[in-house]
Structure formats: structure tokens, C-alpha cells
């Protein structure tokens, strides 16, 4: 009985991982080119930016929040990076500025939510709209062109055979996993999302924790903006629309609970890869973009359904 219980909890814990493997196998059988190194590289590239956003989103959701603004923040930071990344300017400058801009948006969100006591949905919906407007404003609504060659080539390049974009993602994933699972800070993020009252009474500065998770999401959105600009080789004020939804989907599919306090970094990685390979696989199979949306919608609902079912069993 004990073994059986253990086995079933093992399966439910790694469920999404098994699904992932199953889909890889199915796609490979249907289209062997799916598994080609070239396509795998593509998948990593496609997944990276969403993967980075998803890690920011992971902290926010685990702490009990929700961030609708990361797509707009990405665009805003991307425009700033494009405006700075011209001529001989070293790449570090647009990188720092775009991350700093993202950080500011994140802190603004966090302060509004924890100090101003606004619902996370409303506050970040506000910044989503406002920051998108700001992105359009600073570039007059036109794409920013004329990036330096080094900047344009950044996202297309590889390091030790791995796409540079993926290297950024791997570094972010490693840092975020470490912070979430090993540090006191990470533990407190979980405590806040699990029961904010209990966390407060235990002496945790819950306002700081909440603000900081939004700051992380903003920071990573800024980084994503920097990378996005390099990837599309221009600064697009309309970039990253609905990217927040992809990030949320990756988290939820990866087992991060929307009610907070639960989530695993490796789940977020698998979640990101899962939605990417489904999109990529459907592309290779020649399925229309409309159908892809329908499939994505189904995945979100089914993933949350599994999450809710799993939880209610334990109550």
C-alpha cells in the first residue's frame, strides 16, 4: 500500500515529464526530421526567450502573484536596447540598460501590489497597457533599425555548438533553480505564496518578497527584450505581444500552482520545452497556426485540470 502510494505520487509528480517524452517519441515517429540536430537547435532557440520569461513568472506565481506585463516590458526594453545598440557601443551597455528598465517596471508592479494593495491582475494589466504605450512612444511607433553587427549576430551565434540564446536560458535556469531551491530567499518566496499571513507572522518581510519577485520577472523580461531585439535584428515596439501568456502557460504546464506556494524549476523547463515542441512539431507537420492555438488552449486547461485534481485528492 505504501509502495503503491509512493508509485502513484511519483507518477503524478513526474507526469508532465512522461508526457513530454511521449510527445517527443510520437513526433519523431511521425516526422523523423523532428529529432535532427538542426531542428533541436531551432527548438532551443524558439524556447529560450519564453524560457527566460517563464523563470521570472515562476517566482511571481510561487509567491502568490501574477504578472501580465512581461510582454510589454520585453518590448520596451528591446526598443531601448535597439536605440543604444548601434555603432561601436559595447553590447554590455544595451544589456544593462534593458535589464535595468525591466527591473524598474517590475519594482513598480511589486510596489503597487504589495504596498498599494492592488490585485496583481489589475496592476500588471495597467503596466501591460502603459508600458506598451511607452515603448511605442519612444520610437514613434516605428521599428528601430541599424543595430551594430555584433548585436545582430549575437542571437544567431553559438557557443560550443549551443545557440547563444540557449546559453542565456541555461544560465538563467541554473541561477533561478539555485535561488528557488537552495537559498533562504527562495524558501521564503514559497512561504509567502503558501500562506502569506503565516509568513508575515513568522517574521518574513512579505512586502519585500513580493516586490522582489516582480522585480525578478521585470529584470528577466528586460533581458529577454535585449535578446529579442538581437534575434529579430530590429527593435519592434509590438514585440512580445501575449508572451506573458506563454510564460504563464509554461509555468502552469510545468506544475507551478496558480494558487501559489508550489512549483519546481525543472517543471518550468519541461513546461517551456513542451509547449515549444508542440508548436514546432505542428509546424513541421504542416498544421495551420489556427489549429496550433486550439491545441495550446487545450493544453493549458488540461494541465490545470490535472493540477486541481491532484490537489483536491489530498484535501
Amino acid at each position: 500500500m505504501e509502495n503503491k502510494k509512493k508509485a502513484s505520487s511519483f507518477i503524478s509528480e513526474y507526469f508532465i515529464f512522461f508526457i513530454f517524452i511521449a510527445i517527443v517519441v510520437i513526433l519523431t515517429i511521425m516526422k523523423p526530421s523532428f529529432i535532427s540536430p538542426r531542428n533541436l537547435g531551432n527548438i532551443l532557440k524558439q524556447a529560450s526567450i519564453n524560457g527566460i520569461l517563464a523563470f521570472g513568472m515562476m517566482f511571481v506565481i510561487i509567491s502568490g502573484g501574477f504578472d501580465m506585463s512581461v510582454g510589454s516590458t520585453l518590448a520596451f526594453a528591446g526598443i531601448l536596447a535597439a536605440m543604444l545598440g548601434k555603432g561601436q557601443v559595447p553590447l554590455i551597455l544595451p544589456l544593462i540598460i534593458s535589464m535595468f528598465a525591466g527591473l524598474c517596471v517590475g519594482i513598480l508592479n511589486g510596489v503597487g501590489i504589495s504596498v498599494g494593495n492592488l490585485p496583481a491582475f489589475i496592476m500588471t494589466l495597467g503596466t501591460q497597457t502603459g508600458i506598451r504605450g511607452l515603448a511605442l512612444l519612444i520610437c514613434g511607433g516605428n521599428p528601430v533599425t541599424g543595430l551594430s553587427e555584433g548585436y545582430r549576430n549575437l542571437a544567431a551565434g553559438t557557443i560550443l555548438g549551443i545557440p547563444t540564446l540557449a546559453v542565456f536560458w541555461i544560465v538563467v535556469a541554473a541561477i533561478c533553480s539555485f535561488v528557488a531551491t537552495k537559498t533562504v530567499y527562495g524558501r521564503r518566496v514559497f512561504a509567502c505564496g503558501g500562506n502569506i499571513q503565516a509568513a508575515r507572522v513568522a517574521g518574513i518581510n512579505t512586502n519585500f518578497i513580493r516586490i522582489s519577485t516582480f522585480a525578478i520577472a521585470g529584470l528577466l523580461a528586460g533581458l529577454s527584450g535585449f535578446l529579442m531585439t538581437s534575434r529579430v535584428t530590429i527593435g519592434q515596439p509590438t514585440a512580445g505581444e501575449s508572451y506573458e501568456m506563454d510564460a504563464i502557460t509554461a509555468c502552469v504546464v510545468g506544475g507551478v500552482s496558480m494558487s501559489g506556494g508550489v512549483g519546481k524549476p525543472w517543471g518550468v523547463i519541461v513546461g517551456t520545452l513542451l509547449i515549444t515542441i508542440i508548436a514546432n512539431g505542428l509546424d513541421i507537420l504542416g498544421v495551420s497556426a489556427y489549429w496550433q492555438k486550439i491545441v495550446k488552449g487545450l493544453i493549458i486547461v488540461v494541465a490545470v485540470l490535472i493540477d486541481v485534481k491532484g490537489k483536491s485528492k489530498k484535501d
Partner: protein
Amino acid sequence: MEYILDMQNISKTFPGVKALDGVQLKVRPGEVHALMGENGAGKSTLMKILMGIYTMDPGGAITFNGQPYVVHNPKEAMDTGVAMIHQELNPILDMTVYENIFVGRELRKHGIVDKKAEIEEAKRLIEECGLHVSPTETLRHLTVAQCQLIEIIKAISVNAKVIIMDEPTAAITDREVELLFGHIRRLKAKGVAIIYISHRMDEIFAICDSVTVYRDGRYIGCGTTKELDEAALIKMMVGREITDVFPKLEAKIGETIFEAKHVTRADNKVRDVSISVKRGEILGIGGLVGAGRSELVEGIFGMHRLSGGEITVKGKPVHVHSPADIIREGVALVTEDRKVTGLNLTGSVNDNISMVAIHKTLVNGLYSKGKARKLSQEYIEKLNIKTPSGDQIVGNLSGGNQQKVVISKWLLNDPDIIIMDEPTRGIDVGAKRDIYLLIGSLVQQGKAVIIISSEIPELMGVCDRIVVMAEGHMSGEMSRADFSQESIMRLASDIAV
């Protein structure tokens, strides 16, 4: 040093309200000190000041362990040696035992969490407490009592010299209460002082050494439990003498109007239980928490699927698929947890009272606010609900008044059978009495009432007949003449006589 904690002349003013007015509290090391008073007497406010959640008005003084005591938040209070086990504070369910014990003061090594040391330390503390759970178990998988012990372990592990326990027995069974008392005695022996907040008289006399009583934010008196008795305490709390704690009104018992035969729930939490009640009769259902009492009435009421059983209301068989089926037949259920299943906490008193019998508020088929207000006003007066107006948000009322709103909601539907699950839990002496009198007047009108209660004296005081449940089945039944605490206890623990 005679007192470990000495609070003098403590006042707290909120905008428009003086919650505390120069009260005092003196606690000796190694004693269990009860704080008593009706809801709103200022107990929680005082404890929040002690924990650094509220700041007191200037003029008061707190001495702890011989030193002036100044704290600004719960963490500082814990670091100084004062810990609190909150009544309504749920633990972090998705975290493990060891994570909960060390939340907010994680052990670290090289700046990162030292998981191994935490698990070892947690294991030691758990064993010391005689608890059998793994430190890596998630709290979601533990019982309420186990979670509460984890909270106690947390309090001990900060080396608290004073531990505040706010209604620690509100959600645990009698057997677990004994366990809790064992832990309290062990803490006492170590010289730890406990500040114990509870509405249950039997507990006060069972475990406490001294009592301090407050009323309306004022200090009324202090004494030892040896020199005080229940009547004296109640008098201090309510300010007048209540000679009759369980008033019982005479009612004429008529024919059987409600019968549930061989009720078995699909999830097997209730097996083959039969109950019936007559007009004018008050039937009590006793037993330990978890014996299946709430599960029985919820099953009858259509909140859970039954796999067997017949329900007859006023001689007519009723097929219950959902609560609406049985409400239509004139049955009402005042559920156990008013905040979860009883009230729309963000709605007004009027909204809540008209929730069930909404058809009565209609004018030409449309909801009429005026009519709803008029109807609810009637019940506010009849049940003596203390609220500024019917437009007040229910979440802002005290527990006793909230409970009266729940009862009003059902009474407006004019039921003949009223089932009440723990109708007086967490409400103060005065409001309890109001509810007993109300139940009495309901049966005088020829209605039937079924009460579930964990407090045996309450059942014995108000009921005509008591059915006792144990582990999902019925273990016995007795009429008023045969009531005795021992036999109910025996049936509840299901020991063959």
C-alpha cells in the same frame, strides 16, 4: 522576579473605538494563565500588542523577564521569547514539517539553507514531543491536531518563555485535547508560561492555574482557578449573573416529522445510521470530531452522495439529489463552518438573510431591495442581531452575530426541521444563551431541531434525546432522563458497556 510578564496600564485606541482601556496582565513563570472575556473584550488586541502587531497607546508599560519589553513585529517578539499559536492561522500546507518549523528563521550554512541540519533538528523536536510524523512530510497530509502540534513545536524551538495559545482546541478532538494538555504540562514543568485563550469553561478549570478577565476593553479581575468557579467567572465576563447557562423552554412533543433510515454515504464515512425527530423535540447528535456527525447531516442534506438510505419528511419520502430537494420540503441546515458554507462574507446582512428564501423578496417576479430590507429588519430585531444596519457587511460582525444571520437566513424560509451543526462554536456566553433561547422558542412553535455539538454539557442542557456516533455509525441513543456525561463519553469512544 515574581512575574515573567507584567503588562501595566495598556490602552489601545483605534479610530473611533477604545479597544483597550488601561488593562493589566501579570503572568508567572511556569503557569497556565487563562484570558477570558466575551468576543470584543480586548483579548486579541492585547495579544497583538504583545506580539508587536499593534502598537499600544503611550502610558502603558510591559516588563518581560525583568527587562522593559519593546517589540515592533512578531519576529522581534519571538527573538525576545514570546511566541503565539494563532487560532485561525493555517500552517503552510504545501510545505514540509521541517520547512514549517523553520520558516522565517531558516538555518543556514555558507549563506544557503542547511536542509540537513533543519531536518535533523526537526526530527529531534518532533520526537521530544512524542509525535510520530516524518520531518519531510507535507503538512497537507497531516491532521489538524498534528499541524497544531507542529505550531507548538515551532514555538518551543524559538525557546519561548511565554507561549500564547489562542483557542488551541477549537478544531481538535477530545482525545487530541488530552495530548495537547500533556504537552502544556511538560512546558509548564520547564518553566514556560502559557497564556491560554478559550471559551470552554471545562478546559479553563482543567488546565489553567490563574485567570484574568476582561470586559469591553477593561480589566475586571484576576484570580486562581482554585478560588473561582464557573458562575463567578461568567458573572465577571458578562457583568451580570447568568443562573441558567442552558435555558430549556417547555415544548409539547408531537408526531414524528423527520426520519432518515439506514443512511450510508457513498464514501463510507457514514454507515447505516437512522435518526428521527418529532415536532417540538430537540435531538442532539454527540460524538468525537471525525465520528461522522457532520458527514451524516451533510449526506442527508444532499451535499454528498448517499449509497443507501430513505429520507421521509412529514410522512412523505424525499429523493435527495441536491440541497434544493430537501430545502423545498422544509429542512434547514446551519452548517458547521459559517465562514465557508454559511455566509457570503462580503455581502450585506440583508443579502445574506434573503439568500435562501429569495422568492419572498420578489415583487412582480423581480428582486425588491426594499422588501428584502423589510424582511431582514424583522429578523435583526427578532434575533437581536447587533449590527448598525442591514446594509452592514457580514464579515464585519462578531462571530455570534454572524451565526444569528445564518440562522435568520434559514428561518425566513420557514422550515419545520432545523439542523444545526456546532451552532455555538467560537461564540461568547451571551450570544450562546440567545441561541439556546431561540432554539427553545422554535420547538415551542412545533418545529423540530437537530443539534450537533462537541460540548457534552451543551447537549445535555438543551436536548430531549441524544444520539451518539462513533466512527461513522450510531453507537447509542438515550433520552433526557438517562443523560450522563460518562455514558455519552463511553458511547462516543464506542466501548461496549
